């Protein structure tokens, strides 16, 4: 694009990308700017722009002098993150290795089972795991007690740091697994073959070639899962809170919803700054990792046929490990949810099958809150996915294809969205729309805007698809006499559609699962299903809560399966 003189009728070539850039700024920079601003405004219970608010360092002083922050919140957060990252990395690496590099049977089947739980909202899984592992009546405990004769509560206690880390790791492992198996798959086997042909033993080959080549590719998912864990809210709230574990996301929420008194906006903003910095630091590390992974050209997206290692006598332990993992992460939670939706708290041993009842499901039919939540969930997930996909694609295009000034800043800004914990995103949006009374606060609209900060999800996918399309395909169109918009809609768009669809789908899933943002920005009007599930569970209606969870899975699963089939048919693939 010759930026200055694009000629008649092609003002669109400048206007459309510029509009995309502005929207991106609005979605990310405005809330973040407001957050930093709020951190230095006081008194604490005033909004930063309210009359009477003024510049102050009080909020900052308050965190420095807050002992609980240093002795409890920070250590809890760090232990929680470190434990989760370690455990999920180990499990994911083992799973990826088994599936990509050994002669395990039924690999496609196992693969599907491992990633299936990513579709289930974490709240739903959290509730299922409580039903499975709560110290008094968890199914696993009942079974263990019956088997070992253990008396009293336990032996497993989900309400502990160990329990929390275990659940969180179960929940994040599939994400790490997906990326690690991609890294393993894209390892060029001739590298290893060359090593073996040079006389190195398989073990030497593994340590001298395989591991060094794969390391950057394996490091990136580890850092990414650190970021994901850092922003987790659901499990710390549902599983961690009863165990008095107090991580930072939770602390921010408490500042906004104190047991007594007014919300402390300045305090919440001030606390979020160091954690935002932590997130961005991890993001920087991630950026370095993917760069050096690129340098090795192992992560090309190209899949090689791998030489597989025979499992031999390790076959049985391997299957046992897979089975245990899948049981806890996917199978048991699903079974428990279905059971609980039919039988309530009654455990299998004590239930009479004839007592099964669809009352919980039926009650939703006439429940306006359910319909509102269902409508809101879909509305917000779909519209934010559309917005993010469109804006993100435009930004990817600007970054890859133009020399527009400021594109690097735009790129960095959208990438940054990956490092912003969602509780902070929710808080930032809250402060913005409480300050500007445009009637968005408490509506579905504010959720759409808040969800849409995740531009990095699309820019990364769209960028990859655009880069695969040689610029001469677009140039050929221009040389055929097509103007800018024609070229974009007739050539580029159809070619990157599979990539955009994958991005849309991913964002849709993220949107349906989202809990933190709608929880922070909750109002009766904008309630979504994930929040409603938690409210029902809190309110002592386990059957209803479980039934809603089952219904959510039942709604999302077919959509994803159909869409995936369509994408694969179009030659894309998420």
């Amino acid at each position, binding site marked *: 694009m010759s930026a200055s003189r694009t000629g008649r009728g092609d003002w669109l070539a400048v206007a459309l990308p510029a509009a995309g850039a502005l929207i991106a700024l609005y979605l990310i920079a405005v809330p973040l700017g407001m957050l930093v601003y709020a951190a230095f405004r006081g008194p604490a219970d005033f909004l930063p722009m309210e009359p009477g608010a003024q510049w102050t360092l009080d909020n900052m002083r308050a965190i420095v002098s807050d002992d609980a922050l240093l002795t409890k919140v920070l250590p809890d957060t760090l232990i929680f993150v470190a434990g989760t990252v370690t455990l999920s990395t180990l499990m994911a690496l083992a799973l990826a290795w088994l599936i990509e590099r050994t002669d395990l049977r039924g690999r496609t089947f196992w693969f599907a089972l491992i990633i299936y739980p990513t579709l289930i909202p974490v709240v739903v899984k959290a509730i299922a795991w409580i039903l499975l592992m709560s110290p008094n009546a968890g199914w696993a405990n009942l079974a263990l007690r019956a088997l070992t004769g253990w008396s009293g509560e336990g032996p497993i206690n989900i309400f502990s740091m160990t329990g929390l880390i275990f659940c969180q790791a179960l929940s994040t492992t599939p994400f790490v697994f997906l990326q690690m198996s991609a890294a393993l798959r894209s390892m060029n086997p001739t590298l290893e073959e060359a090593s073996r042909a040079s006389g190195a033993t398989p073990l030497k080959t593994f340590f001298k070639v395989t591991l060094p080549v794969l390391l950057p590719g394996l490091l990136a998912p580890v850092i990414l899962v650190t970021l994901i864990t850092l922003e987790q809210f659901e499990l710390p709230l549902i599983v961690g809170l009863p165990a008095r574990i107090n991580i930072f996301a939770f602390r921010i929420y408490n500042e906004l919803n104190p047991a007594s008194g007014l919300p402390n906006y300045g305090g919440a903003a001030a606390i979020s700054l160091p954690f935002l910095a932590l997130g961005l630091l991890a993001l920087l590390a991630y950026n370095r990792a993917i760069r050096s992974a690129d340098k090795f050209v192992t992560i090309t997206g190209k899949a090689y046929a791998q030489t597989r290692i025979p499992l031999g006598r390790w076959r049985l332990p391997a299957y046992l490990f897979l089975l245990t993992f899948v049981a806890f992460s996917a199978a048991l939670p699903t079974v428990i949810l279905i059971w609980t939706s039919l039988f309530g708290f009654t455990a299998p041993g004590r239930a009479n099958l004839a007592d099964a009842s669809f009352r919980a499901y039926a009650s939703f039919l006439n429940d306006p809150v359910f319909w509102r939540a269902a409508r809101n969930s879909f509305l917000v997930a779909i519209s934010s996915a559309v917005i993010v996909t469109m804006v993100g694609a435009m930004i990817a295009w600007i970054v890859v294809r133009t020399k527009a000034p400021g594109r690097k800043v735009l790129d960095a800004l959208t990438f940054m969205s990956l490092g912003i914990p969602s509780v902070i995103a929710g808080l930032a949006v809250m402060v913005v729309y409480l300050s500007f009374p445009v009637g968005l606060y408490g509506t579905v609209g504010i959720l759409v805007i808040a969800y849409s900060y995740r531009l990095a999800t699309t820019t990364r996918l769209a960028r990859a698809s655009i880069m695969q399309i*040689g610029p001469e395909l677009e*140039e050929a169109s221009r040389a*055929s006499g097509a103007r800018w918009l024609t070229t974009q809609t007739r050539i580029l768009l159809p070619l990157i559609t599979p990539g955009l669809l994958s991005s849309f789908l991913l964002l849709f899933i993220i949107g349906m699962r989202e809990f933190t943002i709608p929880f922070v920005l909750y109002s009766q009007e904008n309630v979504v299903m994930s929040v409603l599930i938690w409210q029902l569970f809190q309110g002592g209606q386990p059957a209803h809560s479980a039934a809603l969870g089952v219904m959510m899975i039942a709604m999302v699963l077919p959509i994803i399966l159909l869409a995936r089939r369509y994408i694969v048919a179009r030659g894309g693939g998420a």
Partner: protein
Amino acid sequence: MLNVKGLKCAFNNAGATVVGVDDVSFNIEKGACYALLGPSGCGKTTTLRCVAGLQEPSGGVIEIDGRVVYDATAGICVPTHERPIGVVFQSYAIWPHMTVFENVAYPLRVQRPRLRESEIRDRVMNVLSLVGMKDIGERPAPRLSGGQQQRVALARAIVRNPALVLLDEPLSNLDAVLRDHMRKELAELIARVGVTALFVTHDQIEAMSLAHRIAVMKDGRIVQEGAPREIYAHPRDIFVAQFLGAANTIDGVVDTALADGRARVRLNDGQSLTCRSAAQPGSPVTLVLRPERLRLSASRPDGSAGLAAQVRSVTFLGGFVECVTELGDARLRVIGPPDVSPEAGAGVWLCLLDEPIALPRRE
């Protein structure tokens, strides 16, 4: 028809300025085929992209078919889609999401005012049959062979009867056998359509067999311009001489200047030759001896000029023999019929079929 004057194009490469094209000027007559020939990185593609408007130059004037499409000082830069051109890209750039027919129809479909569907169909079928692809119009584009892609790309470039067709290394993506075949076909096609063409290549055979005129480029500049035979016979310098075909070079010094642009040159080993050269006596020169203008002989040739040399190696290459001979510190390559087979180390005579050219050499 195409008129390029003082074209300049500079790139900003991580802070440093790289001059891709530096003060390039040339003219293409209507209906002529013009080649930009030069080694990798000399600025051929950049020149072509400037003409197409895909790259904004930093100076100069470009005029296509009487219309100024770029003028640095007047601030004119007509966008690509408004220039009357067709482009064949090096990678062919066939859109994979369309059929062959739709690829070729595209330039017509994006025209305003819209053309009637029947007219589009007729014109597309016309060019498709012109390039011999009439029967595979409905085939999805990804399932084409290299040669077929090349034809489709060409059909797409000429379908809207552009004033000028630009081709970037149109044959470089084909294997050797297909390249030979397509070169002949392309020459025929360009002649038949009668379109004005500018093409870029680093292959001198391609340039000489396809183009009416050739511009040899080096480091962003045109070194020499002219008809193929003219450039081949009268290269301006060693670079052009060697780029247009394997040339033997041998150094010497002008002894005496003769009449009508000839000179007696003494080689470093003491032998003398009459050459085409305007150089002054005493000035150092380099002789260009084309292998196909040399003959091996066992005895001193009478009539034509000869040089005594020593055979270094003989390689049998099927249809002919390649013989490397040594003359002082210079090596000369000679092509001979397969039955000539001197012994390595033997003395031979090189007969010169015509007077070689001697180019001034900077010491």
